[in-house]
């Protein structure tokens, strides 16, 4: 479902030198598979997800999703691909403050080809236990509730692949497990492949497949 081949990503530094962040010779995830990628802060976890999602273009290499070579797509096509096939859950939730919980979830299906389905948005919020807080703004929700809305938004567009960037890093221990369970169960129910990056071993050990970024990212091992 997802294949990374020789993916490299580097940034130009102010002194003109290149800073290599990613160098992944090979990485693959099957359809509906759940993978946790573990790595310390600054080892390129977020950049890896950005490259997979098409938010950042790799400096070189290929990212294939469901047979589509992302490098061959125009930027607008990548945006549409992301809108229709990829879900994203951020570490800092990134809910839009002016929108209600329901509207934030609807936003997840606004930019694709699918019509925004209010029923699905409600269903997802019910699924994450927030059916009674549809009209609440993010500031009226607890941190754990905000992340649950973000999970619902990530799944709103019926993605094939859900990328979760440290989804438990900013929530309390009580909510951590709820979020992980929600992600795993809903991805399983909806047959969505999940790549979750984390630095927390207690999160990682709940997954059958654990990948250590220090091992798959040569840019990190060579530093």
């Amino acid at each position, binding site marked *: 479902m997802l294949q990374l081949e020789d993916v490299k990503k580097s940034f130009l530094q102010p002194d003109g030198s290149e800073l290599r962040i990613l160098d992944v010779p090979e990485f693959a995830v099957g359809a509906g598979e759940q993978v946790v990628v573990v790595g310390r802060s600054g080892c390129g976890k*977020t*950049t890896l997800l*950005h490259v997979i*999602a098409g*938010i*950042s273009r790799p400096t070189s290499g290929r990212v294939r999703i469901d047979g589509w070579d992302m490098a061959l797509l125009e*930027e*607008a096509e990548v*945006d*549409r691909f*992301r*809108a*229709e096939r*990829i879900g*994203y859950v*951020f570490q*800092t939730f*990134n809910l*839009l*403050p*002016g*929108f209600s919980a329901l*509207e934030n979830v*609807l*936003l*997840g299906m*606004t*930019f*694709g080809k699918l019509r*925004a389905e209010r029923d699905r948005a409600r269903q997802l919020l019910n699924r994450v236990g927030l059916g009674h807080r549809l009209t609440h703004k993010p500031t009226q929700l607890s941190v754990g509730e905000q992340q649950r809305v973000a999970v619902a*938004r990530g799944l709103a*567009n019926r993605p094939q692949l859900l990328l979760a960037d440290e989804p438990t890093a900013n929530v309390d221990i009580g909510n951590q497990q709820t979020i992980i369970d929600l992600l795993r169960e809903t991805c399983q129910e909806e047959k969505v492949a999940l790549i979750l990056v984390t630095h927390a071993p207690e999160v990682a050990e709940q997954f059958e497949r654990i990948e250590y970024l220090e091992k798959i990212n040569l840019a990190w091992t060579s530093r």
Partner: protein
Amino acid sequence: MSLWKIAWRSIQQRSLASGLTALSMALGVALVVAVLVIYGVLSQSFRRSAQGYDLILGAKGSRLELVLSTVFHLGRPTANIPAKDYYTVVKRYEAEMLAIPMCMGDTFKQHRVIGTTPDMFDELEYMDGKKYQLQEGGRNFAWEGYYEAVIGSTVARRTGLKVGDTFRPVHGDALGHRDQHDFTVVGVLEPTGTPNDRAIFVNIEGFYELHKQEAAGGDDGGHGKAEELAGGAGAGKPASSSAGRGLRYDESREVTAVLVLFRTPNMPRRIAIPKEINRDHELQLQAVAPAEEVTKLFEGIVGNIQWILLFLAILIVIVAGIGILVSIYNSMSDRRHEIAIMRALGARRVTVMMIVLCESILLALGGGAIGVLLGHGLTGLLAPVIAQQTGVAVSPLQFQTSELILIPGLILLASAVGYLPAVVAYRTDVAQSLIASP
């Protein structure tokens, strides 16, 4: 969810800044609307009032002054013309036109009192196809009813006069001395929307009788020629002919103006008659086409003033538009993160650009809508002043078709001023903005 809704949420989120920006737009649009409505109504009303008569005959001098005084009852009455000239014209063109004499110079509670014949309401139309109507219980003054009067609807409302009431006019303005005879109101006109609503019409014979008595009493009240309407040496002479329909023949009399309605459908004659009158140097009068003078007035002086006012109002709208630009542009640094989130959710660059443009258009149109309401409210506030000065009733509910130009105009302005912040949204670096703290 539509892009409009996303844009609206963004406006709501910055409600104070957005509200103030929309308000500045509203004020600009209100001025544009007020100028358009007031000019439109004035122009319409003046043109409509001028429609009722084909020609005005009056003393030589300013043509515009003659029209303003005779048709719109504005300013002081012009100098009088000898009645013999009136008789001459009437006799010469008897088959081709109806000529209705008018005498002015008296007032009642600041309303002009006009001496005329019953033809004024029996024969004339105040607008094409619309004859004067009298309110229930009233009638036109009779030829032989020398001291009868018909009053305009505004006069009735302001003075409280009704059918059966009597009143005594005053020479000249309110400071003049009172006449020596009462007039009886026999009819109240239905509203016509013309300056005649605020005038009082009395039988011209009664008007002459009144002033003849005063002349005999040796009191001219210190007023000018316009008030010296009573016959001089020949006054009181038995009527020897009726060259002027219903107006007793008396060469020593004077009239202030004559309203002319063509009877001939022959267009070349209609054009030729005023020229013939104006070329006849023996006549101490001129013929003026009121519609022509009103058009000149509006296309010349008033039209230019309207353009100057419109230009200033449009400048205010443009400044308000720049306010929208500044408001949205300043918010862009705070909103980069939100834009990046939308991009991460699959929004294309063009989509986020459109959202910013939608926001600009919503602010402009929202402010514009409030401005239209404010503008009409302002018109309503100014209506009494306009009515006082010009006699034109301006309703705050009168919409001008020219106001419709505001919709595409505001969309165009909003698109222009929204373009710069939209480009900033377009260029937002998603990855960098997502990593940066919100």
